């Protein structure tokens, strides 16, 4: 068996894609955005509540697509909940570096460990956009998606 495939589709990724966390739509979001990749049809819809201190008080997503895109969205929502925007930006930068196989020193050791399951993506350059879709959608929600 191809080890890189096993790494890409390890249990944790499949678990997140089959049983996504934070799945749903928040009723009173402060920000929302729809992410769509027209090349493959992957869709992610993000709703979130930003509190007075610019902290992600709550975040949900719905979506449809490949295991990578949905697992990534699920992990993202799980990790972003409770973070400040500044921390969220750092996490996103680190995540994108990680999946591209670049130096991800901006990630804290805990985050790096948590996201380790995504590191295998760097071996699959055609699939990186699947993993980054949710993050770009989150970013769009913050920048232009005030509800």
């Amino acid at each position, binding site marked *: *068996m*191809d080890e*890189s*495939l*096993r790494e*890409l*589709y390890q249990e944790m990724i*499949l678990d997140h894609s089959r049983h996504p966390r934070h799945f749903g739509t928040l009723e009173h979001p402060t920000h929302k955005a729809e992410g769509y990749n027209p*090349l*493959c*049809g*992957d869709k992610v819809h993000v709703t979130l509540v930003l509190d007075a201190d610019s902290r992600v008080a709550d975040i949900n997503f719905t979506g*449809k*697509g*490949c*295991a*990578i895109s949905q697992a990534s969205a699920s992990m993202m929502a799980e990790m972003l909940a409770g973070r400040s925007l500044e921390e969220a930006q750092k996490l996103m930068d680190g995540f994108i570096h990680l999946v591209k196989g670049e130096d991800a020193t901006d990630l804290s050791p805990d985050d790096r460990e948590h996201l380790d399951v995504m590191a295998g993506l760097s071996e*699959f350059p*055609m*699939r990186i956009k*699947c993993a980054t879709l949710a993050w770009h959608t989150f970013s769009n929600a913050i920048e232009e998606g005030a509800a």
Partner: protein
Amino acid sequence: MTAPFTNITGKINRAFDVAAARADFPILSRTVHGKPLVYLDSGASAQKPRIVLDRMNEFARTDYANVHRGVHYLSGAATDAYEAARRTVQKFLGAAREDEIIFTKGGTEAINLVSYSFLAPKIQLGDEIVLSVMEHHSNIVPWHFLRERNGAVLRWVDVRDDGSLDIEALDAAINSKTKLVAITHMSNVLGTVTPLKDIVARAHAKGVPVLADGAQGAVHEIIDVVDLDVDFYAITGHKIYGPTGIGALYAKRAYLKAMRPFNGGGEMIREVAQDRITYADAPARFEAGTPAIIEAVGLAAAMDYLNGFDRNAVMAHEHDIYDYARARVAELNWLKVIGDAPGKGAILSFEAEGMHAHDLATILDREGVAVRAGHHCAQPLMERFGVTSTSRASFALYNTRADVDALMAGLHKAWEILG
């Protein structure tokens, strides 16, 4: 093995020998991720035989210059080669005249040319265009333009659950407001081959012209536009073992004479003054600017290559591979085939339970098996079958039963990982 026979181009055909044919395609000997390449994506773009690559190279090295109007020797040689390529396309499609062949950059441009130059000037608010739900976006979007800009109405014809065209529904959709029937000759997703001659007869009975998207059809069927009586037939070079950047539109002479130019520029004029202009006749009128000269020569080489076989034997081979693949995937109860129309071509689209097409395609890729995954530029069809994407294995003359076996091994592996 079938006996050699003489085809319409007057050449002696080779009987079809897949092992020999594979040796004509240099890329087929490479590996991908350490595994022998199993190329099942010819429906998106076919690989090129050495003879096409060599011919383009040789032409560029020895006879290349810009075409038309040149006085010098090479311009004449290049013009001869370019116009000879047009005659090759003419014969390949069975057209009566060479000036009924317009070189385009592909099938998409050919259809857009008909949309802009033929149909747009005729469309009044509420006029209708009949098309099927299994069209490729290239045979949908140009008509959407006319809906947006001219108020045309798109009248969609459904396919049956097996993927076959509902010809009675198509007939019923054609009415006094219909200005064109735009229909694929072979679906790039379902593999369905449409009864083009019957469609044309029914449309003509109501005075409506027919455009056929032949991007797949011209590769897998033997085309005779005169016998079909089709009004427009669009093809692309790269799916027919030729280069990218070249395609062609066949259009009946009577239509071409009345069509306005599409692009404006060099080559397509008769006379230009400060306050008036007259245009060249077809085909030059529709070939503004320097055309894809080397690619046209390459396309002709590809057609000659294909015509060098007994085309019926090639078709029989492709059907054999498809039938084998269809029977093998029937063993997998978690896989659902979309498109089982009688007489369909060698394209196998399927959905795998609990597996997204992209994840499946990634796993197959690691086995060296190249398939396409996604909506295949046919979103209305995806909607019709209630899916967002499918995986597609499309077979060409160089595919073998061993390729199907490799696909099956990859599918089993995908089930092991994702199932």
